[in-house]
């Protein structure tokens, strides 16, 4: 079998879609392929190759520390994401860095900005309700499972609120569905400003909302519920030149020892049902069984 010539290897590296470079420990680039050149010159708008270590130092000091600490030949990092600021925009690069036996760095890197943006958008879509910017039902339940388990284990209080707009169908019927969306958005904002950062608020579907309040007993949960109810009642929601007013009914329940999330939600739901029965625009507490 004949040896592969360096010309043949170089041909591969010329067309490689990944940027490749070799530099010494001071960061001076000794070898690089065309993709590396175009990444630095066309993407980052530089007029010459940068010093590799200086480039990283400006963006991610912990990666530079990792490189300086490396003693043994081999992998220093793989798919290490670095945010790099260029003239007008930021890029995310993924770095694979190896230390050679001669103490040089072999680096492969790619621009993964678009992939990272997609990941973030996907993550947002998986967690949030688009209309209200509150969490969605699925993500709320994930968090609620974890939080109720933790509260039970450490015997801390935790409370749950289920809120439902009163006569929401009439708003849709009288003003149209876009008006209904405006009201839901506004309620999302009211809820968002009424809760602490440790609380979790979600749109559960339709005009129903759920809130989980860790470290909160039923009396304090009632205060939060009252605040949201009052802020909803007094909100003048403007839509298409008209003022829409609406009210909110809320059911509140505190987790009791041994109770499942499902049971807790059922009790809060029953309390909400009573609030509706008793004439709406009110907060109703669930008696623990």
């Amino acid at each position, binding site marked *: 079998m004949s040896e592969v010539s360096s010309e043949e290897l170089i041909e591969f590296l010329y067309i490689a879609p990944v940027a490749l470079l070799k530099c010494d420990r001071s960061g001076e680039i000794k*070898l*690089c392929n065309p993709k590396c050149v175009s990444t630095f010159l066309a993407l980052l708008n530089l007029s010459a190759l940068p010093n590799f270590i200086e480039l990283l130092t400006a963006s991610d000091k912990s990666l530079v520390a990792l490189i300086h600490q490396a003693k043994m030949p081999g992998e220093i990092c793989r798919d290490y994401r670095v945010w790099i600021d260029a003239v007008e925009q930021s890029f995310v690069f993924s770095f694979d860095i190896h230390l050679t036996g001669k103490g040089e760095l072999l680096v492969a890197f790619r621009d993964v900005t678009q992939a990272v943006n997609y990941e973030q958008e996907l993550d947002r879509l998986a967690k949030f309700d688009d209309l209200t910017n509150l969490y969605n039902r699925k993500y709320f339940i994930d968090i609620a499972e974890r939080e109720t388990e933790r509260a039970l284990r450490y015997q801390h209080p935790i409370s749950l609120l289920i809120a439902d707009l009163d006569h929401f169908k009439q708003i849709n019927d009288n003003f149209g569905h876009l008006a209904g969306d405006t009201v839901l958005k506004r309620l999302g904002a009211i809820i968002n400003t009424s809760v602490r950062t440790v609380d979790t608020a979600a749109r559960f579907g339709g005009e129903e909302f759920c809130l989980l309040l860790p470290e909160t007993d039923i009396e304090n949960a009632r205060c939060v519920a009252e605040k949201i109810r009052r802020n909803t009642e007094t909100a003048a929601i403007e839509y298409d030149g008209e003022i829409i007013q609406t009210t909110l009914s809320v059911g509140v329940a505190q987790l009791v020892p041994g109770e499942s999330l499902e049971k807790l939600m059922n009790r809060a739901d029953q309390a909400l049902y009573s609030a509706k029965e008793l004439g709406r625009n009110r907060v109703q507490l669930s008696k623990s069984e």
Partner: protein
Amino acid sequence: MNLDSLEIAEIRALSVEELNNLPYGVIEMSTDGIVHRYNKYESDAAGLSSESVIGRNFFKEVALCLNDHMVAERFFGAEVLDTTFEYVFSFRLRPNNVTLRLFKDKSGGMMLLLRHV
């Protein structure tokens, strides 16, 4: 001497011998990238004889490292072009700082002028 102040018509009128005495690289190509003239400055810098380069497609066969959107795509994406900028050659993976001037007009094809910094 700046590359961007050179008269292209004068360079085109030079004999092969005069071209070989210039202190910068000249690569004359037809609009499809086939090399017609390749002077000594660049031949020495790249380590390629002009005989081995002339008649071949410059971006596809000779300098694949320039087949990118800063050089080749600019040439092929415009009918007329005259631009000068700093660039890095990665010929045989060795980075070299160069100044490049890309010139293209409707009658005379494409010309790449370059000087190693």
